[in-house]
């Protein structure tokens, strides 16, 4: 139970947040000491996770960080309904109030941002179920094999397709295709509503707009005929980036391994939207905590402490990108631009500096706009749409690169296009390389073939090789990866005994 003075504070903050238009799940704050917050943070915010040493490693790091005063976790919030958030015991009251306001905005973001719509809102329970499942498996087969297998799963858990929930992808496996055909037939006969799966079901108003329509409703006759059976022999029918799903479907796994891989995948999908909206989410929360504090919640005696903490949160070290700072500044910029109408073709076409400087259409549309933005965008689209050259110049953005001659990082550009491209690159796919399964029967030997879509940056080679070894442990036959190394298309193979690397003719690489 929260102490009374914090309960009162919470209802005060909630009332103000609600009045400002934030719309959030019920929030439960838990007051914990440093040790516990480190523990919970190590578990990714959840009170229970399956046993694994990686959580212990994370805890070790956090515990040391807080012991030596290098880092301090102010706030920890879980995307769940009800939303759970942690307050650190012993923080001063201004900080607690600020954290509460910050959490309310996160909570609002979880609830309303479209990319979170398919996340499990009972994830706390689900995580606890996972913990029980894994514990039971450990009891049966022993800790060593389970731990080793989880290591393998973790090393592959970025091989998912976060957008697959929002875009109906063409089917990857025969089963999926047959399901689709079945669904379509059922829908066409009209005796059965297509099953609205909680994951990936497009909204009704989008029907007919999505190409290969999953719901089946918009599908017309000729489209339903299955492709020729020649194609069916090969899997995946279409390249799929949901490598984990494909492995679940096709890899020779034991039942307990399948269970574990499945739950690791589920958790990866649960966390994916948070990685996709890091800048927005933190920016939104920072925007609102400072707005609520400065407009409503704070008296004069609290200003210094508030300013001190906020400046810490938005501090900028050279060579780093602070999502709090970038996010809040971009939200403020959007609010400002829509308040004064600094957007649209007319404004863009104007080349009179003085006129532009004093431009004000009196639109006062900023707040509405940012609420719309928080609903419909993720980091990639957010940056792509709202970043302006003025914004980057005023805030002294730059790109940096590694200079091999000097063995150090140097500022490489202050050009708008460069910075924006670099940002988009780093945010695309959560900063992970885009890799898809393209063939499960490569060279007719049942080998697995992955393809890396190369966007100009090579994979870290030693890591890629070790990951292939892990993949081999699951696939149990040779695994291959097509990538580019120093502009040369290369096929990396691990056959269980050793690695080989072979140059490929340029044409064989998609991208």
């Amino acid at each position, binding site marked *: 139970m929260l102490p009374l003075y914090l309960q009162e504070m919470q209802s005060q903050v909630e009332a103000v947040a609600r009045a400002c238009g934030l719309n959030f799940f019920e929030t439960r704050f838990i007051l914990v000491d440093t040790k516990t917050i480190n523990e919970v943070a190590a578990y990714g915010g959840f009170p229970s996770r399956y046993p694994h040493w990686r959580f212990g490693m994370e805890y070790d790091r956090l515990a040391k960080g807080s012991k030596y005063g290098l880092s301090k976790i102010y706030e920890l919030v879980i995307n769940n309904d009800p939303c759970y958030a942690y307050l650190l015991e012993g923080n001063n009251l201004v900080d607690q109030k600020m954290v509460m306001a910050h959490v309310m905005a996160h909570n609002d973001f979880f609830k309303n941002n479209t990319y979170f719509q398919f996340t499990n809102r009972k994830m706390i329970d689900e995580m606890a179920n996972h913990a029980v499942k894994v514990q039971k498996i450990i009891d049966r087969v022993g800790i060593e094999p389970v731990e080793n297998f989880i290591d393998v799963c973790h090393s592959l858990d970025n091989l998912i397709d976060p957008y697959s929930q929002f875009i109906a992808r063409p089917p990857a496996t025969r089963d999926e295709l047959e399901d689709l055909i079945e669904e379509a037939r059922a829908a066409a006969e009209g005796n059965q509503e297509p099953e609205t799966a909680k994951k990936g079901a497009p909204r009704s108003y989008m029907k007919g707009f999505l190409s290969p329509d999953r719901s089946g409703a918009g599908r017309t006759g000729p489209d339903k005929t299955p492709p020729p059976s020649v194609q069916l022999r090969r899997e995946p029918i279409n390249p799929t980036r949901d490598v984990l799903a494909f492995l679940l479907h096709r890899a020779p796994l034991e039942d307990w391994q399948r269970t574990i891989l499945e739950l690791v995948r589920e958790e990866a999908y649960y966390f994916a939207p948070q990685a996709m909206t890091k800048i927005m989410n933190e920016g939104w929360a920072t925007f609102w905590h400072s707005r609520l504090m400065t407009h409503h919640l704070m008296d004069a005696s609290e200003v210094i402490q508030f300013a001190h903490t906020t400046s810490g949160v938005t501090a900028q070290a050279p060579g780093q990108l602070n999502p709090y700072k970038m996010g809040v500044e971009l939200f403020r910029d959007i609010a400002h631009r829509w308040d004064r109408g600094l957007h649209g073709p007319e404004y863009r076409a104007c080349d009179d500096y003085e006129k532009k400087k004093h431009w004000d259409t009196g639109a006062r549309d900023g707040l509405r706009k940012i609420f719309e933005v928080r609903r419909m965008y993720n980091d990639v689209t957010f940056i792509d749409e709202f970043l302006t050259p003025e914004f980057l110049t005023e805030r002294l953005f730059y790109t940096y690169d590694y200079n091999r001659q000097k063995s150090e990082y140097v500022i490489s550009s202050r050009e708008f296009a460069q910075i924006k491209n670099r940002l988009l690159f780093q945010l695309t796919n959560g900063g992970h390389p885009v890799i898809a399964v393209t063939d499960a029967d490569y060279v007719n030997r049942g080998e697995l073939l992955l393809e890396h879509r190369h966007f100009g940056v090579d994979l870290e*080679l030693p890591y890629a090789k070790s990951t292939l070894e892990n993949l081999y442990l699951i696939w149990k036959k040779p695994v291959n990866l097509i990538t580019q190394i120093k502009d040369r298309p290369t096929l990396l193979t691990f056959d269980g005994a050793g690695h080989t690397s072979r140059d490929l003719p340029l044409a064989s690489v998609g991208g």
Partner: protein
Amino acid sequence: MSQRIDPDHSRFRQIVRGQIKNNLRKYISSGELIGKKGKDRVTIPMPSIDLPRFKYGSKDQGGVSQGPGDVGDSLGADPQAGDGEGQAGSEPGQHELEAEFTLEELARILGDELELPHIEPKGVRTVRAPRDKYNAIRRIGPESLKHFKRTFREALKRQIIMGSYDRDRPIIVPRREDRRYRSWKESQVPQSNAVIIYLMDVSGSMGDEQKAMVRIESFWIDTWLRYQYKGIDSRYIIHDTKAREVDSETFYRTKESGGTMISSAYLLAADLIEAEFPEDSWNVYVFHFSDGDNWSREDTQKCFDTLRGRLLPRINLFGYGQVKSPYGSGQFLHDLEEAFPERENLVLSPIADRNAIMDSIRDFLGKGK
């Protein structure tokens, strides 16, 4: 307080320990890797334990940031190194690990890896020391030591006896006489006293590298013996042609020149033991490091006499480590070998280079003396 994370944390530490064990030779041969922290803690830097993934090479990727500076300005070798505001990120740590151990844990790792036998201390029979242990309960004591469970149990007992306990409304109110406090008991524990006496040749032929080797080796010897004995004393003697007792700082830093008369150190050590560490209650260890270049045969003979007559009969172990130096002849080791064909508690160990330190430690401590 036990935490849910404990099993995961200890599993992680187990993995770290395994890594250190596998790389022990590397850690031993470059002693500077190990940082001392406070009195009984050490830190060992190690490459972070990372799970492989498909990821971009960080050097190829570069990044975006904000701040002043012109194109071409340097950001240093690793701009990601500093961790900004502490955030519970969903990203796995990309940091260098710094494993922290107590000296005891480190000693255990050393012992496991080198298969060192535990030492059977002598003097157990003679010396006993009182030790306090908090395992008793008293009726009076400071509030901070109040034993809540016991207190409430007493109150419950009393209420049941008095008939004032209501099963439906189980309210228990302890009174003054119910209070119980944690307290201590004194017990006699056998105590073994131990002292390590380090002797080092600081003559001109012992260079910096030789001294570094001595420093590393004595660190590990110290670690192991401290683990074996609670409360251990260390004394340091340096010698060239004359010997004198110094503190540890001086011992490791002194740079002298001149000749070598090993006997001077042996005589001083013998005097020290006779004066301060009677053999029936002390476990005495003497380690002597030199490049093996003694002044004269007469002096060597004097060393042997001291060893045979005054040192070896009284002490647990005499270790002679001969570090190879470009100037030393290394004759002393051969002389010792000849003079003491039977070596009960005398260990001779040549240390050719840093890589040999580990074997030398095994030589010294492998006897279980």
